[in-house]
């Protein structure tokens, strides 16, 4: 399951969706809003998504992970809108029979979402300005 959410992420509820009788290992990832980035103090940030394509690409990533690793369930949700410090921006959880598959699949999903899913972050800096982050820009 992959979704874009404009509401705060409820990690406990999402983790509940990983249950299953053959589950021996669960790995969960939370990406949170940090109070700094590249040496600048951050007050908060906003995420914007091209929702239709982001959900399609996210679901594709989850299916890729299911095909590559022996997992039971995969859940990933990415937040959009304005986030305060400490809020969860992205949550990913994987359950599996064994721990190696759970770790590998969780990391695959998070890495691929960050690289491929059309979501953009605007950082709001303590000094008052804000800007969109486009990795690779000079």
């Amino acid at each position, binding site marked *: 399951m992959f979704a874009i959410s404009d509401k705060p992420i409820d990690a406990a509820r999402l983790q509940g969706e990983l249950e299953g009788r053959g589950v021996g290992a669960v790995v969960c990832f939370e990406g949170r809003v940090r109070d700094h980035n590249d040496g600048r103090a951050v007050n908060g940030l906003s995420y*914007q998504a*091209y929702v239709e394509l982001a959900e399609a*690409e996210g679901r594709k990533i989850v299916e890729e992970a299911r095909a590559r690793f022996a997992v039971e369930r995969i859940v990933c949700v990415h937040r959009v809108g304005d986030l305060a410090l400490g809020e969860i921006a992205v949550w990913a959880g994987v359950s599996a029979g064994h721990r190696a598959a759970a770790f590998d699949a969780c990391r695959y999903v*998070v890495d691929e979402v960050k690289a491929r899913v059309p*979501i*953009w972050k605007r950082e709001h800096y303590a000094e008052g300005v804000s800007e969109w982050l486009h990795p690779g820009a000079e």
Partner: protein
Amino acid sequence: MNYRLLYFASLCDSAGRAEEMVASDAQDVRALYAELAARHGFTFTPERLRVAVNGEFTDWNRHLADHDEVVFLPPVSGG
């Protein structure tokens, strides 16, 4: 032909709008981007953007049809 454009992140800031309808003689994605980059002052070269038509990733040589929805995607920064 008429195309529907969606703009995100810094392209949205540059264009000053999140979407627009554009009447254009551009036949493919690359020509359309050149036209819009000139009009809105987009500084991204095509190599740094991805492009989607009607909700699916496609390539820069994609031929366009009337009323296609076209999106130029700046480098992503989710997560």
